[in-house]
């Protein structure tokens, strides 16, 4: 019987929550790195037992830790991600490593990291040493692409959603909050924006009626793990889908969400065997932007038709006065036959569904503020 582990990064350390394929009983283990800010805690699907963790701190600088024994022991990167001096003399400093992505299956020692402030880094030695992807970080237009620090999240602008196309190891995509979505077809040497069709209503409209090419605020970008042409992203300005086989212009599928709920949120996940099935967790993006469950009634919304329609899924959740925030790394799916869907809240609650979102059960209720959830499955 398989073993399923949820790797949970929080503002105060990391936890591992384990179950078997039945997913009826969960065992909570931890904390590890108690007190550290763990933005992302990721298993390597290429090498069972290998995990990587972004470790920050309220006081200390950022680092990355690696385990090769399912988290039993950890070693620190000898050269964590760090900026060199920019060509124009700007000296940026990595505040925290926000995102970690394993490389292509054909490159088992390669990892990517996204940082705050925005930077892209790559390790070719399983996370021990990290180098800048200079084609991105030192791109002549980089400081035009990204918004200023005022356009970042409250704890700093992020580079997130680093994706390595499973069908092409040289095809990379990423999101910048803010800055937009960018992609490279040559392993990071050159980049182009991929934001056509995406609203940017926090900027004034252009006088000539054209769209902004970059500067957008994608919150979370995903590519289907089997169908590389199928992309989705949850944006500050709505929910979008893109079928690359039909063009390069994003369609706002969030227009098909109930109007009273809206299409603002942070995370989005896709069914690993069905590119038309996605889940999102909408949050209130009106008025003061509370970023909490609309009307205090948390719900996941699922689409089975690529975003043409959405179904509310809230069975098991509180029905009132539950003002949840779910951050962009805080939804995950497990790949089991009856797909498990998981979400973690900023008030430390971890919920799971073993019936593809139809009903939800609490798994852990008293963790610190949850920053990320990833799934590690072993036979």
């Amino acid at each position: 019987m398989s073993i399923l582990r949820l790797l949970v990064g929080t503002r105060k350390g990391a936890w591992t929550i384990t179950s078997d394929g039945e997913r009826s009983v969960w065992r909570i283990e931890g904390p590890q790195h108690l007190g550290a800010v763990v933005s992302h805690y990721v298993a390597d699907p290429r090498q069972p037992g290998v995990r990587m963790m972004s470790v920050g701190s309220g006081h200390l600088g950022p680092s990355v830790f690696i385990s090769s024994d399912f988290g039993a022991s950890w070693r620190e990167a000898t050269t964590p991600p760090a900026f060199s001096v920019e060509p124009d003399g700007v000296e940026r400093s990595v505040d925290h490593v926000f995102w970690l992505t394993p490389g292509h299956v054909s490159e088992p020692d390669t990892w990517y990291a996204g940082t705050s402030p925005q930077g892209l880094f790559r390790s070719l030695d399983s996370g021990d040493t990290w180098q800048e992807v200079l084609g991105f970080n030192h791109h002549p237009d980089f400081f035009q692409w990204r918004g200023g620090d005022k356009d970042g999240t409250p704890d700093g602008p992020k580079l997130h959603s680093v994706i390595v196309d499973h069908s092409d190891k040289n095809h990379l995509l990423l999101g910048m909050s803010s800055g937009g979505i960018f992609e490279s077809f040559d392993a990071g040497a050159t980049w182009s924006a991929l934001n056509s069709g995406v609203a940017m209503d926090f900027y004034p409209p252009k006088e000539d009626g054209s769209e902004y090419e970059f500067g957008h605020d994608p919150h979370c970008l995903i590519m289907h793990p089997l169908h590389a042409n199928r992309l989705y992203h949850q944006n500050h300005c709505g929910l979008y889908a893109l079928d690359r086989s039909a063009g390069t212009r994003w369609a706002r599928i969030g227009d098909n969400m109930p109007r009273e709920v809206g299409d603002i949120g942070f995370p989005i996940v896709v069914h690993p065997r069905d590119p038309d099935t996605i889940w999102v967790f909408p949050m209130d993006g009106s008025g003061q932007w509370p970023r909490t469950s609309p009307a205090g009634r948390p719900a996941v919304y699922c689409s089975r038709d690529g975003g043409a329609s959405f179904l509310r899924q809230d069975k098991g959740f509180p029905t009132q006065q539950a003002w949840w925030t779910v951050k962009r790394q805080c939804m995950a799916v497990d790949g089991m036959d009856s797909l498990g869907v998981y979400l973690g809240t900023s008030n430390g609650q971890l919920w799971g569904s073993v019936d593809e979102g139809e009903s939800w059960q609490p798994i852990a209720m008293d963790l610190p503020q949850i920053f990320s959830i990833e799934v590690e499955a072993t036979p």
Partner: protein
Amino acid sequence: MIRVFLPSQLDDYTQGKRELSLELANGGSLADVIAALDNLYAGMAFRVVDEHGRIRRHIAMFVGEVMVRDLSVPVAPNDRVQIVGALSGG
């Protein structure tokens, strides 16, 4: 000997040791003290000083009773150096 006092935030590097003595040939700067500490406890320097040699925002360093923000500050053989986790966070 330079006496160095370390904060609890660095316990993982020092195995809990909070105080030690260093000897720098012909004196040196605070940067030399940090480099010597990193030789003893690999990885520590980057946690308290950023990639451009700046003391991190929520770390304070004292030479004697004076809080300094610049690693070029000279450190004399009998000086007391203290690294402090700033009173921040929640």
